[in-house]
């Protein structure tokens, strides 16, 4: 059905364009949002959405249609492109690429997830039941699962079909004034990930440590995968060609091949990892995707491109289209050699920050930012967890922070939540001389 819709729309588009592409997506999603240890709302979405790309004499149009009348909307759009012919060709004008293969499929389906979407009672219990084993006052969070089915067709003859299931969630557990939070993401139902999410959130909320005073300043920090994934999401976004072009990236000042981080840091874009929800074997231009380093051993290896941004820089696409802007698919940071316990034991003075939010930049070009810690923020003294502090900030520079990475753990966690858009698999990371501030 969606293939027919895609064909019909592409036919409309090709009549009045030099290059065109269409993506038709069917989604069926269920989400349970929890607050005060009960569902606060249960939400469902079932719909078909359409995204169009038109290149008419070098002018580029991209449209998202989430409506009941996509064909009419498409015709309206085509009519408007008549009026818009007076504008000059796009600075990113380039033809859609000739496909390396005309048909491609990317199918990652877990039947258990499809079954669960039909059984809301069961989904609710998936999170609710394990929380009952912990001595917490209450929990909040969400569990979301569903499937997407997409067809991409381009006027160059490419047809790609994508089917993916996904499940992600997060829990924030409360015990008095203490709290803990953890998240996970996956393409398949995985009880271990759910168990870890509940366990970590509840363990952090029930730490029997006293609140202590902290002197702000430079210190070693261990960032949990919740925090590290948030910062990595920002860095990866700044590695796209359009972020650099629009003045939203500290990488504006660097070139590929330059050392920009500690050699301990290797960051990869991993579209082919089937456990991560944005997995795909082809991008929106029909180009085969591949796993690639963005930063490897501290060296900037890749700026993420689609065909258009690549042409401007005389480079090759990296299979990260986005018709207008390239984007990472899924991200992974290479593991280190330590266990978390060892990392803590080797820290004389430092802070373990288990969660954060509200990362904002003062200056994208220099990478000046701050982010606010939340939930368990644990003081480490002489290799031991020694106390808790409230809501500190890390206020620093991205280039400095990634240069000061000292070690990473062996264990990694797949994270996606309210503060992390792109699925990221990351370890704990230890960073020296991070600048920590307090409002008081």
């Amino acid at each position: 059905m969606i293939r027919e819709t895609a064909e019909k729309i592409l036919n409309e588009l090709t009549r009045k364009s030099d290059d065109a592409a269409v993506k038709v997506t069917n989604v069926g999603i269920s989400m349970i949002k929890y607050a005060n240890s009960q569902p606060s709302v249960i939400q469902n979405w079932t719909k078909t959405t359409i995204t169009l790309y038109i290149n008419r004499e070098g002018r580029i149009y991209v449209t998202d249609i989430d409506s009941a009348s996509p064909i009419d909307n498409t015709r309206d759009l085509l009519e408007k492109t008549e009026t818009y012919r007076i504008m000059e060709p796009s600075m990113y004008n380039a033809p859609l690429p000739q496909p390396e293969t005309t048909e491609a499929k990317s199918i990652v389906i877990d039947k258990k997830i499809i079954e669960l979407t039909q059984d809301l009672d069961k989904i609710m219990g998936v999170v609710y039941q394990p929380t009952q084993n912990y001595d917490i006052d209450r929990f909040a969070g969400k569990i979301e699962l569903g499937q997407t089915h997409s067809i991409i067709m381009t006027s160059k003859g490419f047809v790609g079909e994508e089917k993916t299931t996904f499940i992600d969630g997060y829990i924030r557990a409360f015990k008095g004034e203490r709290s803990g939070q953890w998240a996970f993401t996956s393409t398949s139902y995985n009880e271990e990930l759910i168990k870890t999410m509940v366990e970590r959130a509840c363990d952090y909320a029930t730490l029997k440590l006293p609140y202590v005073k902290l002197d702000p300043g430079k210190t070693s920090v261990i960032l949990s995968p919740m925090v590290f994934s948030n910062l990595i999401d920002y860095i990866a976004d700044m590695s796209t060609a359009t972020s650099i072009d629009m003045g939203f990236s500290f990488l504006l000042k660097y070139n590929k091949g330059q050392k920009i981080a500690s050699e301990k840091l290797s960051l990869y874009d991993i579209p082919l990892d089937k456990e991560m929800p944005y997995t795909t074997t082809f991008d929106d231009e029909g180009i085969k995707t591949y796993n690639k380093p963005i930063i490897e051993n501290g060296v900037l290896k890749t700026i993420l491109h689609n065909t258009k941004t690549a042409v401007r820089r005389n480079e090759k696409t990296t299979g990260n289209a986005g018709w207008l802007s390239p984007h990472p698919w899924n991200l992974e940071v290479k593991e280190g050699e330590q266990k978390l316990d060892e990392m803590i034991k080797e820290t004389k003075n430092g802070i373990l920050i288990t969660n954060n939010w509200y990362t904002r930049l003062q200056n994208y070009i220099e990478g000046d930012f701050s982010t606010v810690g939340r939930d368990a923020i644990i003081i480490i003294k002489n290799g031991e967890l020694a106390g808790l502090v409230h809501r500190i900030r890390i206020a620093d520079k991205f280039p400095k922070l990634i240069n000061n990475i000292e070690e990473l753990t062996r264990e990694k966690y797949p994270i996606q939540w309210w503060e992390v858009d792109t699925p990221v698999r990351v370890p704990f990371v230890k960073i020296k001389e991070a600048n920590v501030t307090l409002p008081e």
Partner: protein
Amino acid sequence: MKIDKETLYYIIDKAREKGADYAEARFHSNKSSTILLRNGNIIGVGMDVTEGVGIRVLVSGSLAFSATNNLDKESLERTLDKAISAARAGSHYNKKPILFSNEKMEKASYSVEVKKDPKERSFEEKIGYLKELWKQVSSSTNKAKVQALFTMYSETIEEKSYVNTEGAEIESHVPRIKLFYNIAVQGTNGEGANRWYEYAASGGLELLEEWNVEEVIVEEARILEKVLEEAKRVPQGKYDVVLGTEVVGLMVHESCGHPTEADRILGREAAQAGESFITKEMIHTRIGSEHVTVIDDPTIPRSNGYYLFDDEGVKARPRYLYNEGIINEFLNNRATAAELNVKSNAAARAMDYNSEPIVRMANTYFKPGEYTLEELIEDVKDGLYVKSYMEWNIDDKRWGQRYVGLEAYRIEHGKITYMVKNPILEFTTKEVYTNTDAVGKNLEFHAGVCGKGEPGQGVPVWFGGPEIRVRKMRMK
């Protein structure tokens, strides 16, 4: 494709038949066209349509929401069935039922007047206007180099048709114009800086004329140049600070609007944007000096957060959140109002048809006082004037906040003496409102998109105020 009201009524009637205690159906259409440019060169044009029906039901004290963009009756009924069965499933886990407050329901229709219809100006003219911005900015600096100007201009129309089982029937039509820019400048020593800002309001092209962006943006580039070439760091310490309208607006949004959202206070957003330092017992207690009054008013004509009825059919009015330093009123929807045993003050908003209505701000502002900016400054011996910011954040209880000044000046003996580089203000909510001792008389609004909810909903808001003077603030 617009849906007829009869279909919406059909859905809520069916909901009643199927056992819902309450039901609402909202046809919600957002249409936008956007032009993107970099350094005066066109990137492309975006034209987006989001249009469908959101259905919300209460069954046995359990709330569920379903949405679809398939508008035939069968599909809508399937969507309703999903909502009802989801609510039933949820009720098995509900220890405390969700209830809605009793409210007066009305039938009404409203729209925003457009003085200059965007259709009256040709596409060529609009492009020409945007290209001119780059022309102006690129030659605006002396020493520093303007590396990039990204501009995004959009015209949107939001239309809603809403009915519920308690007799509300509301139609609305709100057009908006928005202009966003980011300027990146490199100084002579290689250091870079950027400034982004957005103008947005409801109305037509008359807004573009009022905003005067072509002059503002040149000044913005020159300010960045001064920050890079001339601004000096000042020693950390306590200073009297005059906060500009942009900082004041954001501050009241973050540390008055958000913490008075009753759903946060009651824990509904606990795992996302967090909770609040305010507990329900803190109503009518002091948070600041008598100079501090903060109002959230959806009914301000031509505002970005404009509405006359919320997405639960309740009539909007100004909400006095902090009144003369006292926590006066929370932002409530019908569920939080019922839990707190008060009336809803019409704070329920949904971003689009895919989104459940949740408690939101509209246009939040610090109530003006009597001082001119000069008068605020002349009574400062040793201080700072922080006019604009780039970085800001606040903790998830809305207590510890931070703003890093972009355009900021040193005040010495009642006079502005030089530009200060990136002063960092990090303080608590109580501290800043308690230390406020004088309030300016002008009122300026700034536009933004406020994020909240799960899935995240970004709704258009204004935040604003006059300049205010705050004594003895820590500067880092």
